[in-house]
């Protein structure tokens, strides 16, 4: 609690104590009025002051004015206790609101506490602590264990494990060594790193993310705009209603019905109206709900660029995704060894050795699968046959490694592979020894991700890919996706997405998920563009509306569930707050609800709505 809040708290206690004592004292008349003025002024002097200033500035319908009128009115009617109580509860409500908002503000900014305070720049053998903003590209930074990496760069010297959880929500540390790129905002855990910066601080990942998060709640959602419009109409409407309630019924009674006007009763009812007229609960709880939702999502490594996207995401019914890099890892691996007549290890060894001089991605994946140091002296007479493969002598044996065309060319009978992917046949001394299947691998959670999306009520799952039909359909089958469009150029992906956009009903939103590599146009064309594994990819952060910091596809469904929870809470608050207020207005007009109930309608609803809104922050187990 800050100084201001503490002061209000003291005033609340003082006024409450005062009131309790007065309630027991059997005083009447002017003395009673005078005594009740003490707690009233203790708790309400600032409201009264503001109300007067408001009138002078021609700002009539603000809540200070309303509270002042309602309480002064009650006191004039002789309802001292209620006058003071309304002020007291109003202040309690305000205090609670400012405390809750301050608290969640702090919570969320702590969550996003990735801003580095300094950079240790090494120059001429000296290390100086510098403001990250002043570090030039190509500077050498020294990062000790426990420190944040301040600026994106490349490891020049040293090896360490990095904690990326502040950025990605991923708790597994990332190993880095010399030559690896590192991203600002990660925490260095084990070893000292010397990093050569490749960007300025303003262009570094950490700045981009902070900028994004800080601006997120400025993009207002439809619900927020609705509330500010509603608040603008609601307060004056209720005030005029109150005026009408105070004046019309007594006049009607007096002039037409010939009954006594009962001014006091109707004015009291009108004052009750004024107490309910403040739209605080709505005005605070809706932005707070979105803020908490965006904050909670951020903690899970899901960055949402604005409340409007969170709202759209909750209405998602179509999810279109790219295959390579989104559902698959986009790296080629040996995924199967078939029809082998020698041991798998041995077959792989022949293939890796024969291909050892090649820099082709296929040969790289062979070497990775082999996993041992390659002794190049065992390989002689390597001959690359473009578009076919290689032949070489390994340990003196003639080895041929390549595709079907190579086997045909050498006149060796081979077995076709029935699975999608690139097939590498191996023959030793003219005898067919089997083949290796190299294909892109599904991401570890790809399958669960698809079923999680289906579980979240996404009815239309579509996969777009530039890959061959066989590979695309194979992946789709494995994932359980029915609709797949293959062999698409980037422009075709945009066209397909537009087709889907035209087909679907307006209310159902279409999400496109890509890895940000060459699908930026589609990301921006879709209702919501989600970029995956965006850590370090500026283009993706730029183009997407929602950014998944790591590349786990399960986060897609998670992001949707987070947005749904947040929107559900926002709507609960809207219906609850408006509903209770309207009900209390009605009961107040009929004289069933007194001022005490009106205070509950105002403060109680606000407290409950704020507490409910904060719930949007808790999304870990969604």
């Amino acid at each position: 609690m800050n100084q201001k809040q503490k002061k209000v708290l003291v005033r609340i206690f003082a006024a409450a104590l005062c009131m309790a004592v007065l309630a027991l004292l059997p005083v009447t008349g002017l003395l009673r009025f005078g005594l009740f003025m003490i707690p009233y002024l203790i708790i309400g002097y600032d409201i009264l002051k503001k109300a007067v200033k408001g009138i002078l500035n021609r700002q009539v319908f603000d809540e200070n004015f309303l509270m002042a009128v309602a309480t002064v009115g009650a006191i004039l009617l002789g309802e001292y206790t209620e006058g003071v109580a309304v002020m007291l509860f109003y202040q309690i409500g305000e205090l609670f609101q400012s405390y809750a908002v301050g608290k969640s503000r702090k919570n969320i900014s702590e969550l996003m506490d990735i801003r580095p305070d300094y950079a240790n720049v090494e120059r001429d053998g000296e290390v100086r602590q510098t403001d990250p903003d002043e570090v030039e590209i190509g500077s050498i930074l020294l990062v000790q264990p426990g420190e944040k990496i301040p600026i994106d760069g490349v490891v020049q010297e040293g090896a360490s494990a990095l904690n990326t959880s502040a950025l990605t929500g991923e708790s597994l540390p990332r190993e880095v060594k010399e030559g690896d790129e590192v991203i600002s905002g990660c925490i260095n855990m084990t070893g000292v790193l010397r990093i050569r910066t490749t960007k300025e601080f303003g262009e570094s990942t950490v700045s981009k993310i902070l900028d994004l998060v800080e601006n997120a709640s400025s993009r207002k959602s439809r619900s927020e705009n609705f509330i500010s419009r509603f608040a603008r109409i609601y307060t004056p409407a209720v005030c005029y209603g109150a005026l009408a309630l105070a004046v019309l019924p007594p006049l009607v009674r007096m002039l037409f019905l010939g009954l006594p006007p009962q001014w006091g009763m109707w004015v009291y009812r009108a004052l009750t109206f004024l107490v309910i007229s403040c739209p605080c609960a709505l005005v605070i709880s809706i932005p707070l709900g979105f803020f908490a939702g965006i904050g909670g999502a951020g903690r899970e490594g899901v960055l949402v660029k604005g409340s409007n996207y969170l709202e759209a995401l909750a209405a998602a019914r179509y999810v279109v995704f790219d295959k390579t890099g989104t559902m698959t890892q986009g790296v080629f691996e040996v995924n199967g060894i078939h029809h082998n007549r020698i041991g798998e290890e041995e077959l792989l060894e022949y293939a890796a050795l024969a291909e050892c001089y090649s820099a082709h991605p296929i040969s790289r994946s062979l070497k990775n699968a082999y996993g041992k140091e390659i002794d190049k002296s065992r390989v002689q007479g390597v001959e690359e046959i473009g578009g076919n493969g290689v032949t070489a002598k390994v340990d003196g044996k003639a080895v041929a490694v390549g595709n079907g065309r190579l086997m045909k060319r050498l006149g060796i009978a081979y077995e076709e592979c029935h699975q999608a992917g690139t097939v590498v046949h191996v023959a030793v001394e003219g005898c067919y020894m089997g083949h290796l299947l190299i294909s892109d691998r599904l991401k570890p959670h790809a399958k669960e991700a698809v079923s999680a999306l289906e579980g979240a009520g996404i009815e239309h799952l579509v996969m777009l890919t530039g890959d061959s039909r066989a590979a695309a359909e194979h992946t789709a089958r494995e994932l359980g996706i029915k609709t797949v469009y293959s062999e698409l150029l980037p422009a075709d992906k945009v066209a397909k997405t537009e087709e889907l956009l035209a087909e679907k009903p307006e209310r159902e939103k279409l999400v496109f998920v890509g890895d940000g590599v060459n699908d930026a146009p589609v990301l921006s064309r879709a209702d919501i563009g989600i970029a995956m594994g965006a850590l370090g990819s500026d283009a993706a952060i730029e183009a997407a509306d929602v950014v998944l910091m790591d590349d786990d596809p399960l986060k897609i469904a998670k992001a949707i569930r987070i947005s749904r929870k947040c929107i559900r809470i926002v709507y609960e608050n809207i219906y609850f707050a408006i509903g209770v207020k309207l009900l209390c207005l009605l009961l107040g007009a009929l004289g069933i609800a007194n001022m005490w109930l009106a205070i509950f309608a105002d403060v109680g609803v606000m407290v409950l709505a704020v507490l409910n809104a904060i719930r949007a922050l808790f999304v870990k187990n969604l």
Partner: protein
Amino acid sequence: MKKTYKIEVDCANCANKMEEAAKKTEGVRDAVVNFMTLKMKVEFEEGSDPKQVMQAVLKNCKRVEDDCEIFL
């Protein structure tokens, strides 16, 4: 030109009012007040002096909500 200023205000409705007031100030093309982050983002008209405009914005904000502050 866009600039971001830190603000101090107690209630969300007051923040909305500040936004309205800032928008109506001469020399301001658009203004967004973010109550949750306590920031005001102002987009200035071409050729206007942000310093002068912000003085006017502050004055207008003070008029609608006495208890507010913009850290210029």
